[in-house]
């Protein structure tokens, strides 16, 4: 009996620890809301979300409109996805379906190492190498801009997209592919018409997770996006996405002043956007899970 009590206690202890992640997530939300919500005491929700001007340090009449920051985040994420999605999915297909075990043993660590590069290093590279290059190559005034940031972000989300899609492609049951090959389809035809459609929900999850990573990435956009809080008007224009604004201004914002609260509110928006993306990814991967060869 005593033995059983001990086992139960141990199980309960593990359960409590497993709930830590949930507790942390809840705490993050509580603190963001606690420090962010006071913002709406001095600016209306509408002016905050749709205001066109972000001048939080103006002494006479500060403006707290995050639309330019929000639009900049959207712009860098979309532009980087244009490169990252095809590149990531194609790499995944190559790794899962085409590469020989030997090539795979080298190529997979390469993708993982790209994922492990610290974001500040990628940002630094964008600043000192890519920016001067872009300036010269496209003959533009500033190399630190939307295009540069998107390019650097793309290489940060490629590993996420590639590894999650690879798992999905790998999980497609063998029988499906064999059936297609037995009917005389080539490897490519099987890939395009059987394997990829069967893995589509996993690839969708991968794409969403990759985009969520790009939206939340801070150091790259802080260092290479240019930093101008204006609506993005050209791909070579400087912008200031939400994470960049938070990271750059937090150190100077007076503690619990209006600016401080407004930055927390911006973080709240950023958090909710990534939360939405992650829940969507989770929903898709559960709803359309490939449970067997029959469900295609």
């Amino acid at each position, binding site marked *: 009996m005593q033995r059983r009590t001990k*086992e139960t206690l*141990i*199980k309960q202890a*593990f*359960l409590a620890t*497993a*709930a*830590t*992640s*949930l507790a942390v*997530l809840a*705490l*993050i939300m509580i*603190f*963001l809301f606690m420090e962010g919500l006071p913002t709406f005491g001095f600016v209306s929700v509408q002016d905050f979300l749709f205001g066109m001007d972000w001048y939080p340090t103006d002494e006479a009449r500060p403006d707290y409109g995050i639309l330019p920051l929000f639009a900049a985040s959207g712009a860098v994420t979309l532009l980087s996805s244009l490169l990252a999605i*095809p*590149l990531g999915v*194609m790499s995944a*297909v*190559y790794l899962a379906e*085409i590469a020989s075990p030997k090539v795979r*043993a080298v*190529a997979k*660590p390469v*993708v*993982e*190492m*790209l994922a*492990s*590069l*610290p*974001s*500040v*290093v*990628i*940002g*630094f590279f964008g*600043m*000192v*190498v890519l920016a001067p290059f872009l300036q010269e190559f496209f003959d533009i005034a500033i190399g630190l801009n939307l295009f540069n940031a998107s390019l650097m972000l793309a290489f940060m989300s*490629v*590993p996420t997209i590639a590894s999650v899609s690879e798992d999905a492609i790998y999980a497609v049951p063998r029988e499906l592919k064999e059936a297609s090959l037995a009917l*005389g389809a*080539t*490897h*490519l035809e099987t890939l395009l018409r059987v394997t990829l459609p069967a893995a589509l929900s996993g690839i969708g999850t991968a794409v969403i997770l990759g985009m969520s990573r790009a*939206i*939340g*990435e801070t*150091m790259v956009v*802080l*260092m290479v996006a240019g930093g101008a809080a204006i609506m993005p008007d050209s791909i070579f224009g400087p912008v200031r996405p939400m994470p960049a604004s938070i*990271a750059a201004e*937090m150190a100077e914002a007076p503690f619990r002043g209006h600016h401080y609260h407004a930055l*927390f509110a911006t*973080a709240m928006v*950023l*958090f909710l956007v*990534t*939360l939405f993306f992650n829940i969507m990814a989770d929903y898709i991967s559960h709803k359309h899970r490939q449970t067997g060869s029959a469900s295609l």
Partner: protein
Amino acid sequence: MTVQATTIAPMPGSTAASGSLSRTSGRDLRRKTSQWVAFMLLRGAILLVAAALAIIVGFLVKNGISAISWNFLFDVPRNYMTEGGVWPCIVGTLLLSLGAMAVALPLGVASAIYLHEYAKPGTFMRIIRLGVNNLAGVPSVVFGLFGLGLFVTAMGLGVSLIAGWLTLGVLCLPVVIGTTEEALRSVPNTYREASLALGGTKWQTIWRVVLPSALPGILTGSILGISRAAGETAAIMFTAAVFYTPKMPNSIFSDVMALPYHIYVLATAGTEIEKTRPIQFGTALVLIALVLGMNIFAIGLRAWLQKRHGK
């Protein structure tokens, strides 16, 4: 690349005359060519990814190697950080990442044990999993603000090592949970069954059988976690790292300098951005050597393990 589904080879025994045979062989050639082209494109994609890694690392090595010297590694920054070395930053980064792992490892391993060994599939497990996945997706700057709000301000720890450990610890938690679960999955079920059949309880089985076999995999995961924490910048900007401090950390409440933040500061806000370029490249090189070194070690360890398990 759009190949019609109807172009599959004709059934044997169909009324294929010699003329239609040559037509099919032409079609086969086209199918083979399009497959060759498509596979070349896929190969090109992975090569582009590899090239990106090679170019970034290559540039940093090429420009940073000249800055590296005994003095650079083991001296303190001098003359408003325009001369001298990065020793305090190396110490700070090591302390931060190891401390973060000390926070994340017990919590992460215990969570993974619950999720893999105890939990039965159901709503509760779904919710915990959703929590872990969402925690993994929280932007690092949000972790930074959370650390600032909870550890630095509300708990009154100030900008300190301990605040950095806790912030980075929860940031690494999903990495540790994920890799530990993978390690637990690779332990064959027969091990568990053998222990249970001998009369071992669930806990005895986990403690004496499952964990020892999963240990190398957990080690791999914790190395990856440490390297993740070592490269993190946004999460320590408001919680642990400072622009410059003349003293080495001497208690858990000390603020520290760290490699990633040092790069950011010198590259964007230093007094002489152009003049300190060599120091910036050198610091970046030290950081990626540290991070990639740990990763290569972990990847090698994993490959060795998989070989041992005969997969």
